[in-house]
């Protein structure tokens, strides 16, 4: 505990130093030394005097050279240390969600820096920085790992909440605030309708970062999670359109019907265009991954870069970058995963999680820091009314929309669900950054203050209380389940069943279209985007292979022979039962190569080969020789049995003896 706090303090001090240093204009190699200079004294004296003959500087101090990266690294380090530190104090982290703690830390750090130096540029949450660097990793992580099944099943509901709900929120808040401003007592008569509507559109959008941060900790059931989260992702299109619309209108001054109509058209253009761009990049990415079998090391980069390009391209045309990013990840994923190696898959997964984690932490800290940096014109009425109105409009919107949606849903949304959806509508950094982009007029600071207050309210109050409320209302929690082959089989079976039933009824429902899409996918798309053999592999087989691979790896890593019988038994049972004459179908090359893969992998890990010294190449992923030696002895035991199992699998009918006893014999022999 002491260690972390001392590290944290050291970081803060360094940050102070850095900010003070950056405040000075001419950073000479010695002129900015405030005494914390680690360089030894003599060189300092040497380099300070420029008109003496310069001796060769053994050690010199040139901070300006690395200032920017140094600052950035320090901030990230501080963020990560804080993230680590919170889990040291279990009581606090259980009650308060991480996001709140991070904002508080940001506030403290901002306050400290400001206290030392009034003019220090503490405005960290620069909009460009936020939208271009901080936001994309989080969205890509969310989009790439989006659970497709619940998402598509609830797509209608999500869209209604995202589009209609956000529109309702924006107009309700905007109009109410305008009404409030008209009241004489508030002294805000200068605020015109368009500015209020603009303000309403900024503050109405549910924020994916905040939702992710809070919902992740409460482990709520899948349906609610996907509803709120899906809404927060898809409402980006609405926000973008409304924002640009009202900004343009407030420039022009007058609004005509034609303009309103164009606004509606632009909504479709923004959202569909964004999705289209994302899909195009996704397909290109999938196509590229088809050819990467010889350079496995750079595979993950393709995924990241194509997605990022999709985001940037969409932003160029003022289309919805978030939707483009999500479309790219969703389209790319099934094909890329079939093509890339297992290690690349792990790399992608961990890099995305890492980046999004860092981004999220940074966003919250900077939110805190930037709050301190603003002058805050405080108008009680405006701010309080905004908070209340936001909450009220959200509740009203959710309740009325659910009433309509439930008429079309198979599984209705209960009152509890509605409450969680309404309560989970958190605002976050996107609203703040959009507010920051507002044209500089007298209202901007007031709006920013109100936005920050709403954000703080939702993140702190709603974020903190949502967990006890979930427990209190006994909302269904997420069911922890590993993939089971049974579930996969039965789910596919039920898909076929329902498709058949729908065809009998002559009713083109959800399953019918899904089936059509799957057929199209299998017939045409997979051939183009997946390398050779894997393109005809049915989904069930891939799933099964993945499971087997996972289990084989688990086996190798844990080194326990106890797990073996579970894999052995199916083979044994197969041999005991009388087999009907095998129809000799032409064995497609898939199974052989998959077998080879699994076999190769197991062999590579189990054999005690003395690693021949290969020439070092940066582009090859080398097996760690140390790991091999350590597990060598343990694994030798299993090697014999694994090889037997693998070879018996390919010559299934040759074994006549019951397999079990042979295995037991083998085990007995090997016990030292």
């Amino acid at each position, binding site marked *: 505990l002491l260690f972390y706090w001392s590290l944290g303090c050291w970081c803060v001090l360094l940050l102070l130093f850095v900010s003070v240093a950056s405040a000075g204009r001419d950073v000479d190699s010695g002129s900015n030394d405030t005494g914390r200079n680690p360089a030894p004294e003599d060189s300092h004296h040497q380099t300070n005097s420029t008109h003496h003959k310069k001796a060769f500087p053994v050690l010199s101090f040139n901070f300006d050279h690395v200032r920017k990266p140094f600052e950035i690294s320090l901030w990230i380090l501080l963020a990560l240390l804080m993230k680590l530190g919170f889990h040291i104090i279990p009581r606090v982290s259980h009650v308060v969600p991480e996001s709140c703690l991070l904002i508080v830390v940001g506030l403290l750090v901002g306050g400290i820096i400001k206290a030392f130096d009034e003019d220090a540029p503490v405005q960290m949450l620069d909009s460009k920085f936020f939208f271009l660097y901080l936001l994309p990793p989080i969205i890509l992580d969310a989009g790439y790992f989006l659970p497709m099944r619940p998402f598509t099943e609830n797509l209608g509901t999500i869209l209604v909440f995202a589009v209609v709900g956000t529109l309702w929120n924006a107009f309700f808040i905007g109009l109410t605030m305008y009404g409030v401003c008209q009241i004489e007592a508030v002294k805000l008569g200068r605020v015109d309708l368009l500015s209020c509507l603009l303000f309403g559109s900024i503050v109405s959008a549910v924020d994916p970062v905040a939702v992710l941060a809070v919902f992740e900790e409460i482990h709520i059931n899948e349906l609610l999670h996907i509803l709120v989260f899906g809404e927060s992702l898809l409402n980006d299109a609405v926000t973008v359109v409304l924002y640009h619309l009202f900004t343009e209108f407030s420039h022009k001054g007058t609004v005509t019907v034609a303009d309103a109509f164009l606004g509606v058209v632009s909504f479709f253009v923004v959202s569909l265009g964004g999705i289209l761009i994302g899909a195009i990049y996704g397909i290109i990415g999938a196509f590229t991954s088809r050819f990467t079998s010889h350079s496995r090391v750079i595979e993950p980069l393709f995924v990241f870069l194509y997605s990022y390009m999709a985001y940037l391209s969409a932003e160029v045309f003022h289309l919805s970058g978030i939707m483009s990013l999500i479309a790219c990840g969703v389209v790319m994923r099934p094909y890329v995963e079939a093509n890339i190696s297992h290690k690349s898959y792990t790399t992608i997964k961990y890099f995305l999680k890492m980046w999004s984690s860092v981004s999220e932490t940074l966003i919250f800290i900077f939110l805190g820091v930037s709050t301190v940096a603003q002058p805050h014109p405080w108008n009680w009425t405006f701010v309080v009314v905004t908070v209340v109105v936001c909450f009220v409009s959200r509740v009203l919107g959710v309740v009325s929309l659910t009433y309509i949606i439930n008429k079309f849903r198979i599984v209705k949304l209960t009152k509890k669900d509605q409450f969680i959806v309404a309560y989970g509508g958190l605002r976050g950094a996107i609203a703040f950054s959009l507010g920051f982009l507002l044209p500089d007029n007298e209202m901007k600071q007031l709006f920013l203050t109100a936005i920050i207050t709403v954000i703080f309210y939702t993140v702190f109050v709603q974020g903190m209380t949502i967990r006890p409320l979930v427990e209190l209302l006994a909302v269904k929690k997420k*069911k922890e389940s590993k993939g089971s*082959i*049974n579930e996969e089989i039965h789910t596919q*079976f039920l898909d*076929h069943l329902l498709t058949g039933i729908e065809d009998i009824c002559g*009713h083109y*429902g959800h399953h019918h279209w899904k089936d059509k899409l799957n057929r199209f996918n299998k017939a045409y798309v997979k051939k183009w985007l997946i390398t050779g053999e894997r393109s005809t592999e049915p989904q069930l087989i891939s799933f099964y292979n993945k499971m087997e691979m996972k289990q084989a790896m688990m086996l190798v890593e844990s080194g326990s022979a106890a797990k073996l019988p579970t894999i052995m038994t199916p083979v044994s*049972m197969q041999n005991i039962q009388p087999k009907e004459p095998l129809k000799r179908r032409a064995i497609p090359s898939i*199974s052989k190569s998959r077998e080879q893969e699994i076999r190769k992998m197991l062999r590579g890990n189990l054999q005690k080969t003395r690693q021949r010294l290969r020439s070092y190449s940066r582009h090859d992923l080398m097996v760690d020789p140390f790991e091999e030696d350590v597990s060598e002895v343990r694994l030798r035991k299993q090697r014999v049995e694994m090889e037997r199992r693998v070879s018996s699998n390919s010559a*299934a009918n040759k074994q006549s003896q019951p397999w079990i006893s042979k295995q037991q014999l083998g085990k007995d022999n090997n016990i030292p």
Partner: protein
Amino acid sequence: MGSSSSRLDRVPGAKDLMEETGFSETNILCLYDRFEVLDREERGYLRLEDFEAIQQLAVNPIGDRIIGAFVFPGRETLDFPSFVRVLAHFRPTDTTWSRSGSQPEPANSRTRKLRFAFSLYDQDGDGKISRAELTEMLQAMLGMQVTDEQLQSIVGRAIQEADLDRDGAISFDEFKKSVEKVDIDHKMSTRFLR
């Protein structure tokens, strides 16, 4: 309302069917229209050929099993009430129905739905899904793209996961348990829209 009640009179036994299955008037009418479309020769009942004429079912890997579930073994024809009774399984689950009732369990309860699905697996009706039956089902679903060894390993693994009493076959309770995490109410329901 007048016209629809006269339309309802066309449908034999409509009132009883509505009460038994819980379908609404519009649903029954809709299904009856569909029944008449399928019954091209207007015999008043459906035969195997009528089902086979549905193109999509021919492409469906388990199409013949589904048809078999409608047309019970031993009977050749399917009349309208039986048609509706089978489809009643796929009505969205009523959240208001509670277990304590004196009424028999409705067709669209979770257990009844699962029983229907189970009966599609269990072709010989012995109350258990044997290894062979599961293999057959998987073969139908996976088609030509899989070897026997892969099939056997998948079947073996599936049985081993689900078979809790180690009798080598999956009983109804074991089946129920293995899909407890799947949202059956959602997956096995379809909307009978107008």
